[in-house]
């Protein structure tokens, strides 16, 4: 997995909003737009059992560091196969499911990545025993499965908005589920763009 960080000073607008008030303003950190490529979220499925046995480690990701992590508490979201869970809410009882210790939540909005400029507090949901906050299944969440070609496409216009385990906000657009974005390569490799708002309590991007 590689992470690129490009500082694009999206924070300017935020700074601008508060620049007329007094000099005690805290210095806000830059909002950064980054890309994660080829995050490998391997999942194995054994179809000889009924129901099939799905296994594999969930790969945990931490927005503040922009990296995957092994930490049992300091993570925000985790990937395995097409499933994405958040560090907040109830366990579903899956094999290798990490324990949720934070306050993370998520929702999906139909828009372009650049157009999502603020969060909608009321839309956040956490994982539950029945369903992930990022709902699974073709057409229900972030991807579409084509039963003819067997290709999983990141559905265009699906922007994932997250509250992190410690109450920050991030937005994500998943671009591809295949190594180097080539559907003839192996699947279970995520490439996504994200913007993390490093400033506590700031709800805009």
């Amino acid at each position, binding site marked *: 997995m590689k992470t690129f960080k490009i500082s694009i000073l999206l924070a300017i607008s935020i700074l601008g909003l508060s620049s007329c008030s007094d000099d005690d303003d805290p210095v806000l950190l830059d909002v950064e737009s980054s890309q994660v490529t080829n995050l490998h979220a391997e999942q194995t499925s054994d179809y000889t059992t009924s129901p099939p046995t799905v296994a594999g480690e969930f790969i945990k990701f931490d927005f503040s560091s922009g990296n995957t992590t092994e930490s049992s508490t300091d993570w925000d979201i985790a990937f395995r196969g097409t499933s994405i869970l958040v560090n907040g809410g109830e366990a579903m009882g899956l094999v290798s499911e990490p324990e949720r210790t934070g306050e993370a939540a998520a929702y999906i909005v*139909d828009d*372009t990545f650049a157009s999502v400029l603020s969060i909608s507090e009321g839309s956040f949901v956490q994982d539950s025993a029945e369903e992930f906050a990022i709902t699974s299944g073709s057409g229900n969440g972030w991807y579409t499965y084509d039963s*003819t070609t067997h290709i999983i*496409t990141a559905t*265009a*216009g*699906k922007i994932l908005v997250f509250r992190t385990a410690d109450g920050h906000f991030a937005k994500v657009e998943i*671009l*591809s589920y295949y190594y180097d974005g080539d559907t003839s390569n192996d699947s279970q490799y995520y*490439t996504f763009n994200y913007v993390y708002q490093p400033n506590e309590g700031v709800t805009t991007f």
Partner: protein
Amino acid sequence: MSNLLRMILNKNVFFIYFSILLSVSSFGQEIVRSSIDSTYTEELDEVIVTATRTTRQLSSLPLQAHIVTNKEIKNINSLRLSDIINEQTGLTIVQDHGDGVQMQGLDSDYTLVLIDGAPLIGRTAGTLDLSRVTVGNIQQIEIVKGATSSLYGSEALAGVINIITKNPQQGFGGNLGYRYGTLNSHDISTTLNYKKNKLGISGFANGNSTDGYDLNESDDLQTVDPYHNYTFNLKVGYDFSENTSLSLSGRYFTENQDYIPTEDLAGKNRINEWNAHLKFNEKFNEKWNGYLDFYTTRYKTDSYLNYTEDDSYYSDSFFDQIMLRPEVRIAFEPSKNHSFIAGVGWTHESLDRTDFSNKPIFDAPYVYLQYDSKPIENLNVILGARFDAHNKYESQFSPKAALRYEITDEIAIKGSVGYGYKAPDFRQLYLDFTNSTVGYTVIGYNRVPNVIEELEEAGQITTIVAPVTEFNGNLKAENSLGFNLGIQYKPSTSLSFEINAFRNNIHDLIDTQVIATKTNGQNVYSYININEVYTQGVEINTTYRPSRNLTLSAGYQLLYAKDKSAVNAFENGEIFARLNTGSPSFHLQKEDYFGLYNRSRHMANGKVFYNHPKSKIDANLRITYRSKYGIYDTNNNNYLDDYDSFVDGFAICDLAMNKTFSEHLRLGFGVDNLFDFTDSDYITSIPGRLIYVKLNINF
């Protein structure tokens, strides 16, 4: 799933364009006559029964209608009905569980197909496969466009295709035809005919086979597997008197096709279809005519698949549909300019098939009335309506009005407006199917409450998307209001020109929708009235006969077929796409919406028929073109937009020649798909160039 698709393709794809062979049989007398007849008189004689259920001269009809004559069928050496339909203006054959016709931009589900006025059944997935029908014993094909439910009830929403088979001809005669061509394709037809005084009998038999073909060499599977089929037809007519006649006809079709969907599986598909039609006609007097029809038909398929390795069982399926229909019809013609026709009948249908938990029965009595008049010299008005009751869905009232006004001897204007509907089919009401490999479930509308309850009790449901209470009512019939407005211009006997604009507003279109999600991550689907769709366009036809031996014709259709909710979604900026995987998504604009799948914006054809009387050679060249169309949402945003992959536009050119040696012998030669067009990625139904020879013997 790709296996499933493959099976489907293998099963029937076949026949489209796949003009294997098919000698068109004809009677000796006709051959002689057709070489004598001038084309002019033939045109005047063209009469059509489908449009009004009475004999009407085609050129004076206020409706959009077209006839394909026996002569044309014979000269193009066509084999199956799908071959001919595909060459007609505004019609194209779409491969989807069989070769179905697309008319005025509407799917095969919405065109009623009749043989001698009685419906063909056997729409396993909506499509009526026209390649089932041999053209060997066809007198003419009548095509009526625009909603015609006012006469025919369900399915006559886009229009009606009626195949008129030959009646026994005076005297004794027979015919043997044989066509052999590329892909080791054989087609043999024979007719025996007898008519003397009151009794007429004609028998027809056809056998058709091919080795199939392979467009994709990279695997061990064939694109189309070998098959063979047979058609038998017997017609008996008896005239008790000048005013009383009886006819009985029976038809039987059987087909066997290999079924090799994967390298590990092999099996067979078998189709058995028959119909019987009894017609009784009593002419009471000059004004009153009575008809009694009794029709029954059965369509049955059986398929199985075994493992190739040890021949052990893998799967099997069947489909068994039966229809029975008595009808009484009265025609009343009080004066030359006014006529009425009224009918009352009853349709009884049942279907037994794999994945049905019960054997549903449909009962539908109906009544219709039509008034055809010429209130003034240049004006023809037709008013009609039909009422269909039904035991399983809402009753339907289908009115229609049409008129034609002759402005001058050369110019006439005609227009019609009609209601059309298609009843929900058995599958949409009663299916209970779970895909054994992928795990999704499809439930018919009426079965939803029960099946969802069963699935919930079995702990297989995660969430309910559409509450079960939504399925307590009745699924509505898909219905449409169709408008046609046209101008006919005939400046001389050798030149004619016709333009017609059409618009079909379809409501309550039935579509599949996710109603629940399952614990295995798959969805449960059912059928629901959801969409509003429209198709609109313009059709142009022109024919020019510079001499009695040369006919040039051209046709064109412009088509826009769109889903109204999709148009709205694009307008509201709710639809997104990516340029390629890995690039960010962007909003699509209204103009990026292409429309419904499988619709070409432009379709055109051009035909040249030439007859050289001295050498007794006739030859023809036909070109059909369709512009690009989408078959698949390649960027997975659920809509066909300009950023999806399209099937490129293409043209197919066919050439046919025949030489008549004597009253008894005629030889033919031809090339279908002259320039060897194929598209192995998207079009599995076009096999490439087919060269054939044909022999026809009359006795």
